[in-house]
């Protein structure tokens, strides 16, 4: 028996919400990164699901782009995290509020 496509969409929505919630509530920059990855992959799952449901290969092509962008983003992001860690010996996002108005 094959699962109904809607289940995949619901799963993607749940994953996305978990990721978004994680970004909002966690202080650790690394965890926030993982949550962002979770959101990106939830989006990927949506793409693939729709690709299957609609019989259109475009969604799967787009997933590859997202993966590449995510990888690049992680490289830059982790670079920033390492740079910050060297200066402040902490990976807590709330320490970085010098742009307060």
């Amino acid at each position, binding site marked *: 028996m094959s699962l109904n496509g809607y289940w995949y969409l619901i799963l993607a929505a749940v994953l996305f919400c978990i990721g978004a919630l994680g970004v909002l509530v966690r202080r650790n920059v690394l965890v926030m990164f993982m949550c962002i990855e979770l959101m990106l992959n939830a989006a990927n799952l949506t793409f693939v699901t729709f690709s299957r449901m609609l019989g259109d290969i475009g969604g799967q092509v787009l997933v590859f782009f997202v993966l590449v962008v995510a990888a690049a983003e992680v490289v830059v992001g982790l670079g920033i995290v390492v740079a910050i860690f060297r200066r402040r010996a902490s990976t807590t996002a709330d320490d*970085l509020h*010098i742009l307060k*108005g």
Partner: protein
Amino acid sequence: MVHAAFLMPLLPLVGFVVLAFGGRRLGDPLAGWVGTAAVTGSFVAACVTIAGLAGMAEHSRHFTQTYFTWIPVGGLQVKAAILVDPLSMTMCMFVTGVSALIHLYSIGYMKGDGDYPKFFVYLNLFVFSMLVLVLANNLLLTFVGWEGVGLCSYWLIAYWFDRDTAASAGKKAFLYNRVGDAGFLVAMFLIFSKTGTLTYRTLFALPLHHLLGPGAAAAAVLLLFLGATGKSAQIPLFNWLPDAMEGPTPVSALIHAATMVTAGVYLMARVAPLLELSGDARLVIAVIGGATAFVAATIACAQQDIKKVLAFSTVSQIGYMVLAVGCRAYVAAIFLMVAHAFYKGLLFLGAGSVIHGLGGEQDLKRMGALRRFMPLTFATYIFAWLAIAGVPPFDGFWAKGDVLDNAWAAHPALWGLGVLTALLTAYYMSRLFFLAFTGRARWDDPAQRAHHPPHESPWVMTLPLVVLAVAAAAGFVIDLPWAHHDSLVGWLAPVFAHDLYQAHQATPTQVALGVVDAVVAVLGVGIGWALWRNRTERPLLENRFLQRVWFWDDAYDTLFGRPGQAMARFAAVVVDGRLIDGAVNGAAALVRATGSGVRRLQTGYVRNYALGIAVGVVAVIAFMASRTWI
């Protein structure tokens, strides 16, 4: 010969430019001689021109020299052109002649002044402006000269601007003249809108009674007359002239007695064809002239400053001229203007000589006995005094007689006012004369005067006195009553075709009126002699009402000055301080308050921003969902 006319305004202009750029290098007294030479050259050019004009046939005695088109705008073609005709040349003769003498006098009077060359710069510019005013062939160019003389007058009144009184007198003169100038401008608008031209000869050749009609003609004349009251110091704008005496005495003589202040009368004479159409407006002019003559004469009786007496006397004499214009006696007005230029110039220059000799003293009560110290000034002053008093045979008698004859023909009441004024004139001039030159020496302040007794002035100052004394004594030859048609009347006839001088006056009436004039003049002199020969104080005759100029200045202060100040204060404190500053500062305060309120939103915490985005997304989704499903 008539083509020398362009030299008249050109020479003072050249003098002005030379002195303005090289005056300091020329210094004292060379700058004065350059200025005098320029104006004397102008006088010579005027003589040559008038000789050429006299050689032309009577009805073609006019010509126009055009230099360039100044304002070419559609129907309005204003040319920089001069009109040479008997009227403008009569003016030019005495303007340049008296100016040349006063320039010469100033060389002596202004000696040692710190800004010596500057004085002659202004003086030459003044003569140039006056000649532009007189020679212009259209109203707008006349207005340029009109403003030019006003500006020079302002500079020269406030010449010693480090004195507060002089600076504010200059401003006062300027502001009073602005009021009049507004009338002049509106009159020009009116005339142009009705007739389409501002050029005198073109304008007067038009069928004016069709184009203007009596109403518009009267309005134009009265508006021009408003300008004339400003420039010629008539009621209601006469108060500036006495204050103008803050300027150096040659300035008072040249600008505020002999030439500039007669510009209003000249303008009225120039637009005589309009006056002919204006009906009752002429009566207004005559009444204002007569009233000014009388009021100013009463005030002159009580003044203590020698120059103030002469200033009010000038106002009064110009009142006579205006009265003559209002009675359609243009020739009489011009005759009195020329005669007045001689004797009033002499009176002022003589007063300047006295002031110079006494080291700056102007108070009549601190003069006296000067006849022994300043014989030449004294002798020439007798001529001026008798001339203005109207004692025959000096020119004042003939000129004033002409005006009074015409006033009699117009309305006996105007004549009565004029004769009363003539009595007062003879009286206050005698008062001045006896106080200054005879009686006890009251200037005798031993500490001050021991080393500097009053002294006669140098020859550059006394020569103009002598020349003007001769002119004041013999000036009447230009217009004798029994030879009218060979003299000034005949000469000006091409200009004032309508003015058939005294055609309706029977000769016995003229003789009777002349006898009355002479008796009144002698009576006035006699009263002055009896009252002031050996008295210096008469509180009843020098009461506060007269000394304070009929409270005229106080009335203006209450009517215009105080409300004006209150309005200015309202504008400064309420409108500017609260309204405008309030709006500007309020806008700034609003932005500042908004900014400091909204600033709290920028916390610097990434999660806050992320929350914002999340909430926004949810809101957008909720909105779209509500649109789709509900």
